[in-house]
């Protein structure tokens, strides 16, 4: 199966989406200090995974669906969700994409194909398979993208779902974003394959589906691997497991503090828990966003000036989003009683 490689235009679009996600996450993070207290609970950032998200979703077509986890800011941005509505949601405001009921962990935008997220590790994996069953019945070649972390592959839900997806040849692409950590636990500490130095994609063996490991910091590499999986799924040949190796550039989430104490982002656990500053700094040196920008500039696809303009455009967009969100009112109290039942 040969796949067309992305055109220059598509590559610029990829970079744009990566920059948007990065900028959005930077602004979320800064909000903790710029507007202390406006973000509550637990927020998880996608910085470091931009290339993986954008590369995978470069194959998304209208009618497809994507589902993910609490670490969910990146996908809807790439799918076209308005960052104003996303930021307002993260601030719990009336203009939030989920009316302030969901918050950072549950951003959802059905109109753009982002069907939902679960905050329970692994629990969303079967949801994606269910949506894929619906796609299979519709017989229009639509597929479902299922994003989850390396840690989630230790939940029973992962195992049960991949077996069924394979048996039923469901059109779903399981994208495991392997960032090497489950909070403060390394993959080697919790995964038998990782402990033996094996890729996690080997787990596909139990489910008789392709299992591929890819450098998740390279959007073109991800796009290629996922492209094959998507083509397979659209052709009715069933699911695939893609292990996309990324590094999260922030801590697992903002710190958990009692009410009153302002929340904030600590340093990455590689540093705070394991004392492996060099590991983190190596990841920073390989930061996928500047790297892809550099690649496009170097190869002449984008001029330095055009790249700078993109940066500025994205910064302005996200600045508007933050201001919009901060200015958005809180929902009416009684609105808490709506939307329990359909």
């Amino acid at each position, binding site marked *: 199966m040969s796949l067309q490689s992305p055109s220059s235009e598509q590559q610029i679009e990829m970079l744009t989406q990566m920059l948007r996600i990065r900028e959005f996450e930077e602004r979320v993070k800064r909000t903790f200090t710029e507007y202390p207290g406006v973000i509550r609970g637990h927020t998880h950032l996608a910085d470091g995974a931009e290339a993986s998200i954008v590369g995978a979703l470069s194959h998304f077509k209208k009618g497809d669906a994507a589902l993910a986890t609490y670490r969910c800011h990146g996908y809807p941005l790439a799918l076209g969700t308005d960052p104003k509505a996303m930021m307002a949601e993260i601030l719990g405001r009336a203009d939030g994409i989920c009316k302030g009921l969901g918050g950072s962990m549950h951003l959802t935008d059905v109109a753009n194909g982002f069907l939902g997220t679960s905050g329970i590790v692994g629990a969303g994996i079967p949801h994606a398979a269910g949506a894929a069953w619906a796609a299979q019945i519709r017989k229009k070649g639509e597929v479902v993208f299922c994003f989850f972390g390396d840690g989630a592959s230790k939940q029973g839900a992962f195992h049960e779902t991949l077996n069924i997806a394979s048996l039923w040849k469901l059109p779903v692409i399981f994208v495991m974003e392997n960032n090497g950590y489950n909070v403060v636990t390394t993959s080697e500490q919790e995964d038998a394959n990782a402990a033996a130095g094996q890729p996690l994609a080997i787990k596909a063996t139990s489910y008789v589906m392709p299992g591929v490991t890819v450098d998740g910091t390279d959007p073109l590499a991800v796009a290629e691997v996922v492209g094959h999986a998507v083509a397979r799924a659209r052709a009715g040949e069933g699911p695939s497991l893609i292990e996309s190796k990324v590094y999260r550039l922030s801590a697992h989430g903002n710190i958990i503090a009692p009410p009153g104490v302002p929340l904030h982002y600590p340093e990455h656990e590689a540093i705070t828990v394991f004392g492996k500053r060099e590991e983190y700094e190596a990841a920073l040196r390989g930061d996928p966003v500047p790297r892809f920008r550099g690649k496009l500039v170097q190869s002449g696809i984008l001029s330095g000036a055009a790249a700078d303009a993109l940066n500025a455009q994205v910064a302005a967009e996200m600045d508007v989003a933050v201001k919009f969100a901060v200015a958005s009112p809180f929902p009416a109290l009684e609105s808490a009683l709506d939307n*329990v039942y359909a």
Partner: protein
Amino acid sequence: MAQLPFIAAIDAGIHQEMRRDPNVLYFGQNLATTENHEFVAEYGHDRVRVTPISETAEIGIAIGAAMAGLRPVVELYMAEFMLVAMDQVVNEAPRFRYMTGGQVKVPLVLKAGFGFAAGWAGQHTGSLTALFMGVPGLKVVVPSTAADAKGLMATAIRDDNPVVFMHHYLLTLEHGEVPDGEHLVPFGVAAVRRTGSDVTIVATGWMVNRALGAAATLAAEGIEVEVIDPRTVAPLDLDTILTSVAKTGRLVVVDQAPRHATVGGIIAADVAEFGFSSLKAPILQVNARDVTVPYSEPLEAYVIPDEARIVDAVRRVMQSGG
């Protein structure tokens, strides 16, 4: 009207809706394993599938399919098997509509038998209805007659929310009159199974029959018992119960679960708040004894509420109060 076993009446409800709406799916373990399976033959494998022993994935898949526009009915056989997937039942299915600000609907039915006190011992006999009753976003149905089994199943499938359909395993082969043709029983409307002026009994599932048996015995003593079967415990038709208690002044709740795990207790607490002024006597509970269900026949019978204990509770409640 046809005489049907309860289990066939449930199937009739599923058929009614599957014929009507191509979006209805039916799947689960150990069904549809051959091409001549009744549902496979009629609806095909797009809509009817056998699953592995994977309740978490089964229910999770139902949720995803529902969010994508379908109406899955999951055959779970025994309510206990939902426990391995309890997160999907109480912390996924009923949460999505709310958390997404109303962007999605999650119409699905989880069909599960319960209360199989027929020698199935400690892990297959539970009466788990109360675990689901208080979860916002979830609806919980407990039919006690064949007709209701059909009509409530059909309503459950048409409902746009996740519904736990708890059918009592000891009723599955009991026969009853079942309306032919389209039959729907509304949610949130209790059935008064027997009218009476002295004492109100509220019971669900198999316990409805035992309550009616007790009522017959008591009638011979001149005690007139009103027996109310809520049919759906979420939503709960508290009005019908309060109206009855306003008349009788006395309430006995009968439940097959151990005391602190009952639907009956929850209802008693509601009446103790909203019907207090009607009460002439304590609200008595007749429940299973506080143990895991034992295997041995006489012990099992000793543990599960029987007519004698219901009769005794009614007599006691008649003696106390004004």
